[in-house]
Every structure is written in C-alpha cells, then in structure tokens.
C-alpha cells in the first residue's frame, strides 16, 4: 500500500500552503489553518535540518528486530520546512543529540515479513560537509 506514497517517501516532497506559509510532510490536501482559503501547492523541501528530539529504540515492533537498537528523531527541516520523523543512521552514540545537523539519505526501511517485500524510504545521517 505504501507504494502510493513512493514519490513522497523517496524524496522530501510534501505540500505547502502559500497563504499561511506552512509546509506539510506528509503532504496534506487541505491546510488545517486556512482550509478553503488556503492555496496548497506541491513542494520539495530542504534535505537538511536539525534534530528537535530523539530516542534510541531497543524494543522494536515486528519486522524491525534485525536493526535494533536504532535511533529515531524528529527533525526540523531548514528554510521553514516541516518537522519530519525518521531513523538516524551512520551516527555515533555520543554524537547523537539535540540540535545535531542532519541530511536525508535513501535507505532500506524494513523487509515485510509475509511477502518479503523490501520497503525503502528516507532516513537521516549527520551532515558530513556542511557548506560544501
């Protein structure tokens, strides 16, 4: 079912209300503030942002056992972008923290137990060369 959102899950493409200048990811078709008064357009958001809060999950749900423990964070994307949730990879434990600057990376999310379908999507990794 997730293939419906492939384009959105593979890129940071969401929507944006031009009236109140709010970004939505996952995309929303209706702006919760402006509703019919809003003007929703598709938008590619910045792939850079910083960690607002994070956790390391040691007790995973079915399908995620192999990768545990893994870090999950809410990341505020740059340029007035939305908050986005995702795993943080390639990051030492001591480095992981509030305010850490990260960028998106395209990775395997999990393998579906029943049918062996591999799900891909966006994760986050520390920015290695900011301002390159």
């Amino acid at each position, binding site marked *: 079912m997730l293939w419906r959102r492939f384009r959105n899950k593979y890129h940071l493409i969401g929507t944006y209300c031009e009236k109140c200048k709010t970004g939505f990811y996952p995309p929303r078709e209706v702006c919760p503030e402006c509703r019919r008064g809003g003007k929703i357009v598709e938008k590619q958001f910045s792939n850079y942002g910083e960690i607002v809060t994070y956790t390391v*999950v040691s007790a995973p749900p079915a399908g995620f056992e192999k990768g545990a423990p893994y870090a999950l964070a809410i990341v505020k994307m740059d340029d007035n972008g939305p908050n986005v949730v995702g795993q943080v990879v390639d990051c030492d434990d001591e480095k992981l923290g509030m305010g850490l600057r990260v960028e998106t990376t395209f990775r395997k999310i999990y393998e579906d137990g029943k049918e062996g379908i591999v799900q891909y999507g966006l994760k986050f990794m520390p920015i290695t060369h900011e301002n390159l």
Partner: protein
Amino acid sequence: MLSTGAKFAKGVDMRVAVIGVGLTKFGEVWTKSLRDIALEAGVKAISDANISAADIDAMFIGNMSAGRFSGQEHLGALVADQVGVSIPSTRVEGACASGSLALREGVSSIMAGLSDVVLVGGAEKMTDISTEYATTGLMGAADEEWEGFHGMTFPGLYALMARKHMHDFGTTHEQMASAAVKNHHNATMNKDVAQYPFEITVDKVLNSAMIASPLTLLDCSPITDGAAAIILCREDLAKKYCDTPVYVTGSGQASDTLALHDRKSLTGLQAAVDASRVAYKMAGIGVKDVDVCEVHDCFTIAEVMACEDLGFCKKGVGGKFIEDGNTQIGGKIPVNTSGGLKACGHPVGATGIKQASEIVLQLRGDAGKRQVNGAEIGMTHNVGGSGATCVVNIFRR
C-alpha cells in the same frame, strides 16, 4: 484551535448518574477469553448497581484491537449476546481512549432521551499474541503510514516527548520515575484489581531494561488483559437503584494530529488542555476543586505532562510537582490512586472505564486503604494514541 465543543460547555446540564461499577482482575489472564472477561465485568457492574440486565436500555463497549488481536470485531453485539439482551449495543474506538469515549456515548444517549439506563464497558485481551506483534498492533493507535513505517513504537513516541521535556525544562528521569514509584505504592492498596501491586524504587526504574531512551521498562505501562464496566442512569432515577449515586457533571473531548511530529508542541498534549477546559466549564468548577484524579500514565512522562495540561501545576514543573509528593494520597491532588496504567495495568479499551470506576469508588468513600478523605469531585484523563484523542470526564458525589 480550541475544540469547538467549548461553545456548548456552559449550556449543558448532564443529569447522568453512575450507579454501579465492575472490574475484573487485571493481568495476564490465560484461562479466559475476551468474551469471558467482558461478561464478568458486566455482571459485576449489574450486580453492584442492584439492577437486572432487563433494566438496561443500551450498551457502549470500548475496545481498540480485538480485530487484530483476536480476529473478532463487532464487540457490541458480542457483549450483548453474552449478557443475553437484544438492546442497542455499539462498539466505540479511539485507541487507548476508547473506554472514555464509550462512556461519553453512554452519557449522550441518556441526555438525548434515547436511554434511561446504560451499561458502558471496556475490554481488551492483549496477552494472546507476542510482544512484537502487540507492539506493532498498538502502533495502529498512532500514524501507521508515517510513524509505524519508520519503526516507531509507542514508547518511542513518548520518549521523544520525554527527551524534549527534559531538554526544555530540566525535568529529570528521577522525577519521572517518582510517578511510577507512587503508582506502584497505590497499587499495593488495590490488590483485587492491580496487575503489579508491589513497591518499586526510583533506582529500579532508572536501572531497568532500556525500551526507548530515556524510557526504561519501568517507565512503561504493561500489556494487560482486563475488562471494566459501569452502569449509567438518568439522574432522577438513580436513587431508585442506589443510595450513593455519583454524577457525571462534565465531559470534554478533543483531537490533535495523529502524528506527533505534526504538532506545535512536543512537551504537552494540546487535546488534553482543550478537553479539560471544556470539562471544567461544563462542570462549573476550576482545577482547585478537583479532589482526586486518574490520569493516563501510559508512560511516566505522560503523568508529568498530564499534571501540567490539566492545570495541577505550571507548565514545565510537572516532574518536580510529582517528586515533591503533591500527587500522593494525602498530597495536594492525589493522582492515580488505583495504581494508574503503570501498576494497575492498561487493558487499552478498559482503561477509561477503570479510571471512572476508581473515581466512583473514591467519591462513594469505598476505596478502602487508598481512600482520599472527603473526596467530593473527581476527574479522569484518558488519552488515545500519542495524544490525538483526549477525553476528560468530571464526576461529583
């Protein structure tokens, strides 16, 4: 945006009484099925109310995941069948707030003049499946497509809030743990129902297995089988059945985004703030009037946020407020005298009804060793998912 339910708060006169309560023992009940425990709680409540099943006009049953956990939907009909009545019986679901939503629908049915006597039940059977599968199933309460997809868990969502609360306000893990310690202590005085009626310490919480940092196993409410039921009745008929009716005087319900990351604040639940404002206004009381409260401590941080969201203390100081003993029995505002979700157990659909039942016992003066002296007004705070639904109900004797 404030829940627009607020506009009705003042004009509403509930005129609904609680005349009976019934609870099963909470825990891992291997020998009983969902229908067994639902019937047990229902029969106990009917008996406590001193009515017969034939007096009941309608039922509302709170349950979250019997479809996933047991392959059984249609719990309204199932419970009516077990009790042996053919009255209207409707399942109501709002994740972990399902029980309180069912109670609201029961109240609504009586206020609407569609029923005089209503049985409201809640039940969940969660220990028949593996922990991993239960963890996955419970994420159905959050945003499956955009949170569950990434391996997010319920402890993970509350851990994100806990970390932010600690960061923004200096809340400590020790403070959070003190909520669990208090709730386990309260549970020792509720042995007939509580899943874990034993004492723990702050050290034990801090040193138990990590689940989703900073939350450890003892920060989390358990997986529980259990059922609860209460009997609602039109106010003017209550004395016919019962010498000590308790009245529902206010009810607020509000929603927020399903996904946590979509919210403006990550250190409190706006839906809880909204729902409590409506409930206070409807009941015509202020926070200072509340004598006893059951809050939704699915994780220790949730009880910290609840104390702030409901107005027991100022924003940011909930941890210290609990650590200082204000929420103990005998404190400023006793919270979770039943043992809370943490130590009494959290059979999802039953939790809201168990909270109501505990408040009713307190207001009747029937809470035994854990009685709050002179309790006249009580409140329940029941949260669905990571805060996308919140219901606050107010009771008085």
